[in-house]
């Protein structure tokens, strides 16, 4: 684990780790974005990744999901070393992610956005398209039924035939999350799922995230809103200046002066007012 933080509770207190990274470094044009980030994400829990702006949170999600290569360090998904694997390979092992600014597949309909998500589809092979049409139909029917259920849960069912680019900002957030759920991941990385959405929707998204845990997923989410973190997250990782500053329950971290100084103090005082 890390060297700096004091009151760190190990994830053993929760369960085994399913996603971990060790000594990740990454620099852009000579500026260090990550400077030896190390942590474990406990299995089937909701973990928050918090830290001040520029702490390297999104860079870390990019590296964990394979969208970016780290300069050094290792990442593991379960017991498999996934360091710098291409993102589609990591996704196939069961890790999904969302993006900070929603990235919908704009030309596809809402329903199609979900239908793309299942990782292995027989209908994606030229051979099957022409020689196994029945298999294709069966698979497509199953996928559509499952996608329909998910869309209904996320309140997007009525929008199923709209092109995704026509959706509002909040709807795009929901679409992106439901698309990830459609892929049935074991680990789901959410990059600020509540950013820029209205308070009512924040509550709904929090409910969806609790649902994911109930269904057995592990969630790692970047979140600035400590009220949300407090309510739904089991475990918190604090990142500052590209390093893991501390890990543990939020209550423990609040007692940690280093954490408070780096981050919590100012945000808490600002956060409790709204």
């Amino acid at each position, binding site marked *: 684990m890390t060297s700096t933080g004091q009151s760190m509770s190990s994830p053993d207190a929760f369960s085994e780790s399913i996603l971990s990274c060790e000594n990740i470094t990454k620099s852009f044009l000579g500026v260090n974005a990550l400077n030896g980030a190390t942590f474990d994400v406990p299995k089937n829990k909701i973990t928050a990744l918090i830290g001040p702006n520029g702490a390297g949170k999104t860079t870390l999600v990019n590296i964990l*999901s*394979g*969208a970016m290569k780290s300069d050094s360090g290792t990442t593991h998904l379960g017991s498999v070393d996934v360091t710098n694997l*291409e*993102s*589609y390979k990591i*996704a*196939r092992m069961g890790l999904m*992610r969302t993006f900070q600014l929603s*990235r919908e*597949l*704009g*030309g*596809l309909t809402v*329903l*199609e956005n979900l*239908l*793309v*998500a299942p990782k*292995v*589809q*027989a*209908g*994606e*092979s*030229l051979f099957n*398209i022409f020689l196994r049409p029945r298999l*294709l139909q069966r*698979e*497509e*029917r199953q996928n*559509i*039924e499952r996608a*329909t*259920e998910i869309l*209904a849960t996320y*309140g997007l*069912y*009525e929008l*199923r*035939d709209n*092109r995704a680019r026509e959706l509002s900002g909040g709807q795009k957030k929901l679409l992106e999350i439901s*698309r990830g759920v459609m*892929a049935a991941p074991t680990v789901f990385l959410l990059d600020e799922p509540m950013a820029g959405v209205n308070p009512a929707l924040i509550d*709904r998204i*929090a*409910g*969806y995230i*609790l*649902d994911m845990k*109930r269904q057995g997923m592990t969630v790692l989410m970047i979140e600035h809103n400590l009220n949300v973190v407090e*309510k739904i997250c*089991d475990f918190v990782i604090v990142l500052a200046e590209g390093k893991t500053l501390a890990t543990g*329950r939020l209550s423990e971290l*609040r*007692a940690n002066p280093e954490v*408070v100084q780096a981050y*919590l*103090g100012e945000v*808490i005082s600002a956060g409790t007012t709204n």
Partner: protein
Amino acid sequence: MSAFWYYVFTLVFFLFDYFILAMGLNIQYGETGILNFAYIGFVAIGAYMTGVAGMPNAGTSGQHYILGLNLPFPINLIIGGLSASALAFLVALITLRRLRTDYLAMVLISLSLVLYDISNNFIPLFNGADGLYNVPEPFASALKLTTNSFVPFFAGVAGVVALILWFFMSRITRSPLGRTLRAIRDDPTVASALGKGVFRYQLTSMLVGSFYAGVGGGLLIQFGGSFNPTAWLPGETFVIFAVIIVGGVGNNVGMLVGALVVETLLIHLPAFLPAIPGHPGLIEYIDTMVIGVVLMIMLWFRPQGIVPERVRRSKFLLPDFAPSGGGAVIAPTGPAIPTEEAAGAGPPFFIEEKDV
């Protein structure tokens, strides 16, 4: 047969042929987002290979070319298509994995110019600037077709080939494969994050599209009977881009409409206008400029084309579509987020104290 009908059937042939070429470029650019500025190079390879697969051994003909297999139609045509795919495989392997869109376009347009340069200069393989001539006309001797009756006959052949290829293409674009290709076009990063091996799908798209390019080229060379290197300059790729953009990117029917508007109306009809005295070729130059301008106007005012990409509605995906949810919005299955009052009854990890 009158000259009028001869020209009508010539136009019909070009309509079908450019329909095929447009479908091939459409799966690459319109469905997958690969800006293939070398497309005409794949058409040229298909044309050349179809030609030499159908021609007799070069021997004493005075021309230089490879193969000379004397193969009958449509085997030579398939060889043409497969050759274009083979080139696409090589090109994709070197370039697709490494380059972002615009670098890829740079490399491809360079490739197009180099292919042109080589076919124009390299006599042992391509017969240099002379190209190929006396390419056999399929079925012409068997059916005792004259030069006049061959034109309507081969326009019909092109129509049949186009119909078959249309059937295959619509199966592909309707399938989950087509959907994944469009996902890659819209955002390759997201597609990759969803577990799609982007390179593999782009490769598939390049191979399929290039096969269409090769077949379209093969039909062209058999219709015209000759292979002329200057017909394959990069500007020709632009014409096919104009066809798909005017017709409607991402829509196979749009390809036929685009071929009608651009290829038949804008390119071949003006050829019947009388030349402006003292300015040979001026009409052709102006015509080409008009195509460029039309394309820019289309891109600005109607980027979706005459026949826009189909919205694939759920009814279309599954005819007896009847959702289990019945359309109602269902709340999250678990309890909603605990309210302030209920906080004490929350899960064990819940934090009581608010202040640091």
